[in-house]
């Protein structure tokens, strides 16, 4: 299911005290099956764009095509449910949305809202608990008895249980410890590779962009600043530095190496890529001759 923005602009209602940057004339496609990273500063319009993906917001002008549905400023607020089922959205710190008395019921809440019979919803909940890597015995526990990291998994399981085709994630690893972060990113990678799920992720971690994404959208002041593959985006480190968006650690390291005299014909994105590029220019252990 592709999601396409055509000349989409969004202005907040004039007069609201919490005005953020809206969107201005966005044209971009999130291809089906992609792992898209959405980057930009706080206030660049990332969250606004995100909320267009499942019609929580409607454009003030332009069209958002979600699969076969078209969302325009005139779209009726009703009957948007089908979209919200297909585009699962995980907000920042999603553990704050838990409310049920047991983990199972909370996960089953979403599917039930979309008309899944209760038995099936509860069965799905059970599967999801396993999928997100929670121990089976949490099923009847109160979500509020779990650790922060576990609560977040429950919340994500609650969205996955809706069986969306697209999974939208707003900084899903914020505030987690390194293990939690690694496991969480592993989960999304698994969903992307094994189930072919389209992933859209807002992140500030350029390492994650480099390691996982295959498509990047850069926003700035509500406008589309750049879009392309991570390699295309990170190929111009000066541009990113100028925009204060940061670089993947590998790219930074490679820059330091270049300054020293190393030559790379392409921008390395991960430590393994960098190691491979270095290996061509370095002697191996068993006393191989210098190049």
């Amino acid at each position, binding site marked *: 299911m592709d999601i396409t923005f055509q000349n989409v602009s969004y202005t907040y209602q004039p007069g609201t005290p919490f005005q953020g940057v809206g969107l201005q004339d966005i044209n971009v496609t999130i291809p089906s099956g992609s792992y898209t990273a959405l980057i930009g500063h706080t206030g660049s319009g990332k969250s606004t764009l995100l909320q267009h993906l499942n019609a929580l917001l409607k454009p003030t002008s332009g069209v958002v095509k979600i699969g076969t549905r078209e969302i325009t400023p005139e779209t009726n607020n009703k009957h948007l449910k089908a979209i919200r089922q297909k585009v699962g959205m995980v907000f920042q710190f999603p553990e704050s949305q838990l*409310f*049920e*008395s047991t983990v199972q019921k909370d996960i089953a809440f979403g599917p039930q809202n979309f008309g899944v019979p209760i038995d099936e919803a509860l069965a799905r909940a059970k599967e999801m608990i396993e999928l997100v890597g929670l121990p089976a015995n949490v099923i009847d526990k*109160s979500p*509020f008895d779990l650790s922060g990291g576990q609560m977040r998994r429950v919340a994500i399981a609650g969205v996955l249980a809706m069986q969306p085709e697209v999974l939208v994630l707003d900084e899903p690893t914020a505030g987690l410890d390194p293990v939690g972060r690694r496991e969480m990113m592993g989960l999304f990678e698994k969903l992307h590779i094994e189930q072919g799920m389209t992933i859209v992720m807002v992140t500030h971690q350029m390492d994650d962009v480099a390691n996982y994404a295959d498509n990047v959208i850069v926003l700035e002041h509500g406008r589309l600043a750049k879009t392309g593959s991570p390699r295309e985006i990170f190929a111009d480190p000066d541009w990113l530095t100028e925009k204060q968006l940061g670089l993947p650690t590998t790219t930074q390291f490679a820059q330091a190496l270049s300054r020293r005299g190393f030559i790379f014909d392409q921008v390395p994105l991960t430590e393994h890529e960098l190691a491979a590029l270095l290996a061509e220019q370095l002697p191996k252990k068993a006393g191989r001759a210098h190049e």
Partner: protein
Amino acid sequence: KLDTRRVVLLAVLIALQLVIARFAISLTIFRISFGFIVTALMGWWFGPFWAGLAAVIGDLINSLMIGVPGGYFPGFTLSAFLGAFIYGLYFYHEKITWWRVLAAVTTVILVVNLGLNSWWVSIISHTPFGFHFTARAIGEAATLVVHPVILYIVMHFEPIIRLKNRII
């Protein structure tokens, strides 16, 4: 006296009350606002005196500082106090039964919503108390059914009981 933790909690609940009171269900004939849930829970968790005080603070913030339309009239501050106070009398340290919830809501409706509030309007407008009482009574009939049901369900919902246990 309350310790720091509970004073702070009560303060945050006042803020929550003000926020929740802003959204309401509107059906063609009447409107249910949900601020009363927080008021009742404050009574349950903190007792009549502190809940009453919290309600007064909430009313002052609402009418003087946020400046909700309609202006300030001290009578309604007293109404706010009494409403929370009554919930405290019925719920504090008590087992929450259907009868208790029904009795509490009935008392609040009779004494505060119908009695005091009609009286205030009749004082301001210099019109007969009976008219306001009757006019309000029609709307409050729905409240009498809806509020006890909501309160009973909320006060027996496991996550809420869990929160109650965090207070002690």
